[in-house]
């Protein structure tokens, strides 16, 4: 506003009008920088504030003003802009895929109660998981249950359960552990992933055979054969998917070489099964194989059950060799539930491993590398004992947790009750310190294992990769094996002449030696 005016001027209407016009036109001035004018801007801000009527309007005035000044996307003719369309498309696509999860299968309208329902009661497990503070949230677990049901409808499975979730950088994996019905596994068509590794093994075996004629290298490594299906580390088959509702992919069986290599490297998963693993030592396979190897290691290390739930079948126990350990068990029908307090005690005597331990060789049952080369054992017993590699032994099946080695000076398992305030109804929870993310709970006759994590072992020390082999020494330089250039024709001629003259000199008795041989 202009400054002083004499009193007489202020009252005159014509003056007030002109002042008003001046100042209004000032407000209408367009800014040379942004093209805004103050009048329109204030009008817009005040309109917005009056429409929204926020609390403490005076305080938030600057925020509204700033927001109005921000460049707005040009309003399109339709309501949604391109960005919104993209968003709704991806959400829509996923929702459509997941809708299939909720569709009932054919012929399910008549309620059939089957004795052997392949999947466990997911919602019951989800409730216990929630009480224990582990697992995924309820809606996710429900979708998991539906996805498992889908899996059992598409493949002939005897059992299927949710193994867990492994996080990756771009995408995560949801893993289901299944057991095929007897004899049905070979007919399954999803062998795509499996063929690659089998072919590689076949090629390696052929190469090894071809080299039999040539002198044997010092470092001859025979390929440790992988375990048969349904035994040892390949006892169960695993399916993975990135997002519930998308089709499940079967993971190939694991080979001992992959387990041995997986123990030496530590890599994040990307979320794509065909991603290569670049590491030292080079991992024999791609991400699908690495995933399978880690799953095998985690299952072997952390799948536990209350003692007495599983027992050895009486018929399977063999006393002939004394060393043949039973590797099969059945559910104990006379299992007495153990009280939660005992299960949660830190002495860990009430839990046992029910998956076989993986030996350093990479298998669960030791394979003697000598047996492949020699058709019959040597008659000389002494020589055999000296050459025979020591069989590797691991803790037997169904051994209690109290026998596990300490981690970092602490017990490898953390036990707790789910509730401090109501211990009578609490669920016993056990957590692994060696494989962070592996949990188990037990309540009465119900128990379950689950793994949710990144798929790596815990180590108090930082990871250091395997050292590369030292540079091989060259042969020591001896004149006998040092290469020399072939003599040129001139040198040969000179040498030949020298030879002839030598002969002549020897024949010559004059003693007239001519040292000069030209």
């Amino acid at each position, binding site marked *: 506003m202009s400054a002083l005016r004499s009193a007489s001027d202020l009252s005159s209407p014509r003056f007030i009008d002109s002042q008003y016009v001046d100042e209004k036109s000032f407000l209408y001035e367009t800014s040379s920088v942004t093209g805004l004018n103050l009048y329109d801007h204030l009008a817009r801000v005040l309109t917005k504030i009056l429409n929204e009527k926020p609390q403490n309007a005076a305080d938030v005035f600057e*925020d509204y003003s700033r927001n109005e000044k921000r460049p707005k996307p040009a309003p399109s003719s339709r309501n949604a802009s391109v960005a919104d369309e993209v968003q709704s498309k991806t959400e*829509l696509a996923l929702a459509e895929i997941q809708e299939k999860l909720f569709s009932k299968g054919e012929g399910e309208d008549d309620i059939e109660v089957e004795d052997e329902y392949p999947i466990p009661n997911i919602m019951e497990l989800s409730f216990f998981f929630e*009480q224990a*503070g582990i697992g995924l*949230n309820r809606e996710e677990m429900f979708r998991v249950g539906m996805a498992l049901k889908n899996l059992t409808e598409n493949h002939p499975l005897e059992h299927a359960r949710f193994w867990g979730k492994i996080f990756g950088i771009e995408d995560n994996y949801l893993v289901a552990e299944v057991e095929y019905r007897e004899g049905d596994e070979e007919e399954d068509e999803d062998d795509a992933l499996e063929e690659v590794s089998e072919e590689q093994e076949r090629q390696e075996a052929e190469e090894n055979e071809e080299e039999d004629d040539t002198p044997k290298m010092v470092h001859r490594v025979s390929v440790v054969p992988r375990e048969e299906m349904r035994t040892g580390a390949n006892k169960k088959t695993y399916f993975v998917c990135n997002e519930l509702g998308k089709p499940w992919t079967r993971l190939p069986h694991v080979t001992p070489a992959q387990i041995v290599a997986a123990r030496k490297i530590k890599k994040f998963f990307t979320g794509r099964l065909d991603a290569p693993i670049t590491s030292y030592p080079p991992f024999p396979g791609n991400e699908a194989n690495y995933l399978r190897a880690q799953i095998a290691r985690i299952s072997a290390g952390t799948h536990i059950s209350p003692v007495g739930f599983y027992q050895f079948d009486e018929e399977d126990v063999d006393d002939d060799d004394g060393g043949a350990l039973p590797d099969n068990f059945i559910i104990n029908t006379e299992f007495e539930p153990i009280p939660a307090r005992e299960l949660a005690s830190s002495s860990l005597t009430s839990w046992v491993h029910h998956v076989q331990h993986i030996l350093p060789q990479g298998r669960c049952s030791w394979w003697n590398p000598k047996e492949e080369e020699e058709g019959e054992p040597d008659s000389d017993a002494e020589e055999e004992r000296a050459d025979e590699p020591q069989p590797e032994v691991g803790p037997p099946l169904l051994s209690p947790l109290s026998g596990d080695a300490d981690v970092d000076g602490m*017990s490898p398992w953390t036990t707790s009750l789910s509730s401090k305030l109501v211990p009578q109804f609490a669920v016993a929870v056990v957590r692994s310190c060696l494989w962070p993310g592996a949990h188990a709970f037990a309540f009465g006759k119900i128990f379950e294992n689950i793994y949710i994590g990144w798929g790596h072992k815990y180590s108090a020390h930082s990871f250091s990769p395997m050292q590369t082999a030292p540079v091989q020494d060259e042969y020591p330089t001896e004149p006998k094996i040092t290469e020399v250039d072939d003599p040129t024709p001139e040198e040969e001629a000179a040498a030949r002449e020298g030879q002839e003259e030598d002969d002549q000199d020897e024949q010559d008795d004059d003693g007239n030696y001519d040292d000069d041989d030209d």
Partner: protein
Amino acid sequence: MESKDLNLSIEAVGSSGFILSSEQRAALQTSLVLLQNKQKFANVFFWGKIIGGREDYYIAQGIAKDYLSERRTLYSKDCVHWGLLPRPTADTKAKAKQITGYFTGDPSYESEQKIVTLVGDEETEEIITLKEEDRLAAVVSEIDNDVAIVPRGAFVRDPTGKTYQNRVFEGLTLSEASQLYSYLHFRKAEKLLSKTLLQRSNLDKSLDFMDTIEEDIPRGCWSLQLERGGGLVTLRSLLWLGYVFYHVPGTRQYGSVYFGRGDKNIDLPFML
């Protein structure tokens, strides 16, 4: 995550395996309100859980007024009784970086670590001890400094330098939310000042006063995933495994939580 929407926020991070049992949720709802009143905080956050070898610690943070100023950190073993953690000194922070291994779950436990340093040809052994409480405080502060993030636009700074929440923040769009530059470290800017004037000319002074996570070293140390087909954006830090940030694009909802062992993943370069 803010204590007021604890229940909703926990559902959002459920896909990362972070679950609070009903007992814990009920206890937290009550005890955090009491805490806010007793300590005269303007806002109380449930920071997360530090998993120990025998027992876990639940951590909460309270803010007086300015969001970027000092926050007070509190810990509890049962979500009911809270104890104030001391403010970590530079010495404590340095010591905590050297100590490895699980937290034990006993706040008065003294962790010992033998440090062997090579001076010339001689090896000198030094044993450093640190009380668990101090170690906890130092780890929480380090995690906040390294990985605590907020979406761009959620906070504004006025010309006087005070930071406060942006009341007209409507959330990031889906395309913005899929870019790492839309997320800023919630701490005093470190890399911002070393940028050239040309780079800074594109930035909005009131919104871009913090570093973006796009320039974090090593590249790829953040895992950005879209869940629910784009309905939820989850960022997981690979440097501190267990830190998860979530945001629902198009809405004001965002939050972060840490459920982990409190160990920095220094193997990160090998694992990428």
